[in-house]
């Protein structure tokens, strides 16, 4: 049995080397000035800029802003998506009323509602949170519709035999049954939340990582841009990782 972890560690080492090789290639490309260094800093300059942000503490306030907006929008979307999804799945009336509109709105790019949202809500946190929620709601909604909808027929019969009200049935049978689908939707949504948050910050000049990077681009401070890309990459990776772990843990009973 000991061979298996050894083998895995070996593969991890190899993929680490591969990653390191990519960084070296980046460094070489930058040093060889294949691309104008004004636009394309090497990893050394990018990471030292990132370290400068961390050590001076100037990273935390914009990062906190971005994370706050992202999660506020995401949670709002989860609440709305699960509620609407449960309604659409449980009632034929709600389905006929809501589903066509949802189908039409779903392919709409979330960023496309930024301009009207700015007109209506102004340059504000509330505007960004709303747009993020709009972008995030669809995967959760689809997951909820699917999850609440495909309750095992026998469970439906059990709930009828027990004389449960439709609320009780939704809470005790449909919700647990729907959780895996809902979580899957929520995990897709959190990546969307990050993208929409950053795009909104860039457009509406609200302090955050996205705005920081756009200002850097206008001033040709390319090391700042790469440091920002790294920060957002790490943020994307972490949120993905955490939601995945959380999902595994919460669904362990399955």
């Amino acid at each position, binding site marked *: 049995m000991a061979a298996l972890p050894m083998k895995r560690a070996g*593969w*991890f080492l*190899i*993929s*680490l*080397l*591969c*990653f390191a090789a*990519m960084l070296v290639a980046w460094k070489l490309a930058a040093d060889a000035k294949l*691309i104008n260094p004004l*636009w*394309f800093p090497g990893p050394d300059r990018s990471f030292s800029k990132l370290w400068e942000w961390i050590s001076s503490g100037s990273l935390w306030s914009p990062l906190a802003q971005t994370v706050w907006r992202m999660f506020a929008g995401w949670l709002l979307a989860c609440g709305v998506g699960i509620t609407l999804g449960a309604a659409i799945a449980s009632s034929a009336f709600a389905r*006929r*009323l*809501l*589903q*066509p*509109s949802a*189908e*039409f*709105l779903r*392919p*709409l*790019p*979330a*960023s*496309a*509602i*930024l*301009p*009207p949202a*700015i*007109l*209506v809500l102004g340059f504000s946190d509330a505007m960004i949170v709303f747009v993020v929620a709009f972008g995030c709601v669809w995967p959760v909604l689809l997951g909820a519709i699917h999850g609440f909808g495909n309750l095992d027929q026998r469970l439906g019969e059990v709930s009828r035999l027990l004389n449960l009200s439709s609320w009780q049935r939704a809470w005790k049978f449909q919700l647990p049954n729907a959780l895996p689908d809902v979580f899957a939707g929520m995990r897709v949504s959190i*990546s969307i939340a*990050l*993208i929409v948050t*950053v*795009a909104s910050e*860039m*457009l509406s000049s609200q302090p955050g990582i*996205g705005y920081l*990077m*756009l200002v*850097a*681009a206008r001033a*040709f401070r*390319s090391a700042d*841009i*790469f440091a*920002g*890309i790294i920060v*957002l*990459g790490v943020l*994307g*990776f972490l949120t*993905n990782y955490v939601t995945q772990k959380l999902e595994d843990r919460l669904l362990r009973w399955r």
Partner: protein
Amino acid sequence: MGAVLPVVVLALWEMLSRAEVLSEDGFSRPSRFVVAGAKALADGTLLEQTAQTFAAATEALLIAAVAGIAIGAILGLFKPLERAAQLTIDALRPIPSVALIPLSLLLFGFSRNMSAAVAAFACFWPILLVTISAVRGVDGRLIEVGRLLGFSFARIIVKFALPAALPGILVGIRVSAGIAIVVTVTTEIVTNPRGLGFAMTMAAQSLQADLVWATLMWVGVIGWLVNWSLERLERRWLRYR
């Protein structure tokens, strides 16, 4: 029945706007944006902007498809390579595409390529991952047959692996086509002065609320149409299965 909700919302919108409950500057009113939309359609600006957006999205999809299928086929056929590349993929994939807007702006300036580069990055990942798993799912005996026939490696890929993996890859391309349009419009809204996204930003900045809403609805119709036609196409192409 499905039309009830939109009709009620639009009617309420019109009424509340006329009663000045909803501010004109932000909400405009449905009757106005029908007029604004018709005007933009008639003078050709809306169609020109749509063409710009489509050109950038198509370019992005092509780049992503070529790169994603090529790299995905190689990684899918050689498991050790995929394992070696795993960490690099895991590190690069979570980078939100919009984070590349400032970089792309520096590299390409305000141009079609700027939008296309950012959107291509976003489209690359689904195509790559789908291709890897589709190629992996190809029956090993097919590859074996190719070897027995003495085909070169490239010929095995083109003649056996890719056709067998095609249905999976097409799903990835369909998903990516939607992403391409979304990301292209996003780059246009944020910075790039071209296409439908910029049309909306411009209209918002000059406080033409009616034009903003009209363009938004146009984008909605376009997005829905693209989705619908891709689903149809996929169904038709894959009928042989």
